[in-house]
């Protein structure tokens, strides 16, 4: 099992989820995060003084998948999340040592 952690633009969440569903992975966890990368922050104004928001809102999407599905899932996420502009985000992949479904106590790949 692998965990795929995608940092994407908030407005791309819906198409990405769509893509995951079509691959049979409806389950996922999302977190609102702020990201900093190549993309420059935005400048706001407050009573005549400018200030930069260095971090921009991103969504972190976590989905645990079976090893054999990994590449397909990555491709689907990349396809749905890409706009081609700076700030599209990244995907990181981690090894998952184990998984447990709390409701049933099942573990391993059955828990996904």
């Amino acid at each position, binding site marked *: 099992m692998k965990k795929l952690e995608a940092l994407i633009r908030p407005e791309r969440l819906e198409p990405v989820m769509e893509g995951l569903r079509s691959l049979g992975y409806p389950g996922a966890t999302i977190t609102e995060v*702020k990201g900093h990368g190549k993309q420059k*922050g935005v*400048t*706001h*104004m*407050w*009573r*005549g*003084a*400018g*200030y*930069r*928001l*260095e*971090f921009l809102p991103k969504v972190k999407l976590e989905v645990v998948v079976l090893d054999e599905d990994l590449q397909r899932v990555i491709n689907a996420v990349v396809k749905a999340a890409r706009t081609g502009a700076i700030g599209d985000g990244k995907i990181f992949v981690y090894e998952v040592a184990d998984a447990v479904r709390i409701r049933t106590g099942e573990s391993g790949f059955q828990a996904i």
Partner: protein
Amino acid sequence: MRRFIVLAMFLLLMMVLMVTPALAEEAGEAKTPQGIETSLDTVWVLIAAALVFFMQAGFFFLEGGLTRAKNVSNAMLKGAMDFCLGALIFWAVGFALMFGADRGGFLGTGGFFANMADPQWNGLPLYVFLFFQIAFAGAAATILAGGIAERFKFGAYCIATVTITGLIYPVVGHWIWAEGGWLYRLGMLDFAGSTVVHTVGGICALVGAWMVGPRAGKYDPDGTPRAIPGHNIPMAALGTFILWLGWYGFNPGSTLKASPAIATVAMTTTLAASAGGAVAMFLTWARYGKPDVSMSMNGILAGLVAVTAGCAYVSMVSAFAIGLVAGVLVVFAVEFVDRRLRVDDPVGAVSVHAVNGIWGTIAVGLFAQASYGEANGVAAVNGLFFGGGVAQLGKQLLGIVSVSAWVAVTATLMFLALKKTVGIRVSEESQRVGLDVSEHNLEAYPDFQPAVAEKGGM
């Protein structure tokens, strides 16, 4: 601190025992035109006073909205308590100093706890006059709150506010509004209090903000100001409009009489506010590239403050012009205070109240027209622009200078004394967690996730 609390409670209790109850005035059978007129005046001034009272909420919402979430409960309690304590002290002491028997033009005496011989004040029931004055005193005192927001000790604030309402403000009020007051006799004109209320409050805010120092993180080591955005713009907008509403009690109510003159005053008030708001909006648009919301709100207030002195002496067009200038002034004043003076004034109290209080007082010397004063039943004077020469302008300037000096000195002494005793500035750690937690053990919005501050200067 505990000792201070016990003392305060003791003093409050003392009041009950110390005072002989005043005899209330007789309720005239309101059948005669005379009686009806008194009743009408009472109704009018009472409603005006209630609107001015409600400005407290406008002030604390404006402050709360323009500062950070972690200090908003503190702003609420400051605003509530400066009225509660202020009303008590003004009733007990301030009113007597302001309107008691004159001593040398400088101070009133007698009539503590509103124990005055005459149950009427120029034909108006004494108590409604007192209520109106209490609401005004509350406004003068609460202006300070915005200037020293987010870093001032709550206990010290309570003492400061009591001192302003009980001493600093009533003395100025006596000078300008009491019949024996030296500026009154001289002929300085400040119809509804650009100087008496706003300059007084604004200078207290300036001295306080300067002495307590800037908020942690407000200035870079090299003195560059950093933006500290307010946490709730709608809150500030509602505050502004509550204030504007209250001004329809503040200005027309200052006639202290139901008469057609209040119509004129209401209109000058409306036009100055509108002009101030509109011009601040366009000016920030031109300067910053986009119309600025909080500065436009400040522009409205600047127009209101500026027209307060002259609202019964000037024409519609003059009121409009006064508001225009006020809207321009406030934008530049905010930048000046922030960048040049390096005084940290989170809500613009100095720029709105001190700067425009002064401008409004000067404006009387420029724009007053005898025809208006006469029609409104107040002093008939012509300002510089209407053939009156510089006579009135001189009086206005003298008034501004004297009042500013008095307030600057007494406020400095007051803050110094507080600094030496209870202290005025909370620790950096308190500022970091916020006054709500450090001063009141409370979170204002426990159900919401606060966002980590990650603002950079520019």
